[in-house]
C-alpha cells in the first residue's frame, strides 16, 4: 500500500521502537507479557501452596506446640511488616499511575519509596531472625524449646521436636518470601534505571506493570503468612 510496507514496518512500528516486530500491535504485545506473567505467578502460587499445605497438616497434628512456638515470635514486628508491605503495594500502583500520566519525577520517587519499604521489611525481618537465633529457636543442633507452656493449657509443655517443625516451616516460608523480596528489589532497581532513562511513556510501561504484579503477589503471600505464622492462638 504505502512505502512503509516495502521496508516491512507498519505505521505503528515506525513510531514505537519498543514494539517488537513479532507482535501485531502494542496491545497484543502487552497482553502477551501479562499472560506470561500470570502463568509464572500460577507456578509461584503452587510453589508456596505446597509449603502452606505442609504447614496446615502439621498445624492440625501439633496445634498446641505450634501455638506455643508461634507465641514466641514478635507479632508486632510481623504486623508492622504487613503494614510496610501494604504501603509498598500502594507506592507500586502510584508509580504505574505516574507512568500513565507522564509524571516522571513522581514515578522515580514512587519506585525509590517502594524499594525503601522493601528494605525496611527485610530489616525488620532481620531483627526478628536475630531474636530467634539468640533464643536458640533456629532448627538445628543448638535448637532448644524446653519448658514452653502450651497457651491455654497451664502445666503442659510443648514438645520441642514438634515446635522445631513449626520453626522449620517459619524459616523456610519467611525465608523464601524474603528471597522473593530481594529478587523484587533487583527488579525494581532495573525499573528505576529504565524510568530514570525516560523509557516509560503513557503508551509503554509494561515492565512496570509486570514488576508490579510480582510485587503484589509477594505482598499477598505475606498477607497469608502473617496470621498463619504469627497469630496462632494468641488470645490464650
Amino acid at each position, binding site marked *: 500500500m504505502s512505502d512503509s510496507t516495502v521496508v516491512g514496518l507498519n505505521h505503528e512500528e515506525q513510531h514505537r521502537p519498543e514494539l517488537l516486530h513479532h507482535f501485531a500491535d502494542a496491545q497484543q504485545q502487552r*497482553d502477551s507479557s501479562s*499472560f506470561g506473567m500470570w502463568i509464572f505467578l500460577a507456578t509461584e502460587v503452587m510453589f508456596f501452596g505446597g509449603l502452606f*499445605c505442609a504447614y496446615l*497438616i502439621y498445624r492440625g497434628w501439633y496445634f498446641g506446640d505450634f501455638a506455643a512456638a508461634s507465641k514466641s515470635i514478635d507479632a508486632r514486628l510481623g504486623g508492622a511488616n504487613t503494614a510496610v508491605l*501494604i504501603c509498598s503495594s*500502594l507506592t507500586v*500502583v502510584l508509580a504505574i499511575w505516574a507512568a500513565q500520566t507522564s509524571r516522571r519525577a513522581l514515578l522515580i520517587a514512587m519506585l525509590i519509596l517502594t524499594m525503601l519499604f522493601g528494605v525496611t521489611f527485610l530489616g525488620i525481618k532481620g531483627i526478628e531472625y536475630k531474636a530467634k537465633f539468640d533464643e536458640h529457636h533456629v532448627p538445628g543442633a543448638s535448637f532448644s524449646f524446653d519448658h514452653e507452656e502450651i497457651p491455654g493449657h497451664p502445666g503442659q509443655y510443648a514438645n520441642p521436636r514438634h515446635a522445631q517443625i513449626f520453626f522449620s516451616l517459619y524459616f523456610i516460608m519467611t525465608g523464601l518470601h524474603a528471597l522473593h523480596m530481594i529478587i523484587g528489589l533487583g527488579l525494581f532497581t532495573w525499573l528505576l534505571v529504565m524510568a530514570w532513562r525516560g523509557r516509560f511513556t503513557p503508551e509503554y510501561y509494561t515492565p512496570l506493570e509486570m514488576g508490579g504484579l510480582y510485587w503484589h503477589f509477594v505482598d499477598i503471600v505475606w498477607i497469608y503468612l502473617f496470621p498463619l505464622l504469627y*497469630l496462632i492462638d494468641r488470645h490464650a
Partner: protein
Amino acid sequence: MSDHSQSSPLKMYFVVWGSLLLGTLLTYEAALLDLGRFNAAVALTIATTKALLVALFFMHIKGAHEKLLKLVVISTVFFLFLLLVLSMADYGTRAWS
C-alpha cells in the same frame, strides 16, 4: 489502560490501601479475642479479603478484558484448592494416625 478512568483510580487506590491497613489491624485484634475454633476462620477470612482486594484492584483483575488471563487465574485458584482441600480431606480425617 482506558482513558475514561483517569481521574478515579487514585481515590480507589487509597481506599484499598486504607482497607488493607484496617484489615491488618483487625486480624491482629481478632487474634487476641477468644473465638474458640473460629479464630482461624476469622483470620483466614480477613486474609482472603485482603488478598482479593490486592488482586482485584492493585493487580487489576477487575476490569481485565483478556479471557486467557481469567482462565489462568481461575485455574490457579482451582488447583490450589485441589492441593489444599484434598490433602486436608485425607490428613484431617485420619482417626487412626
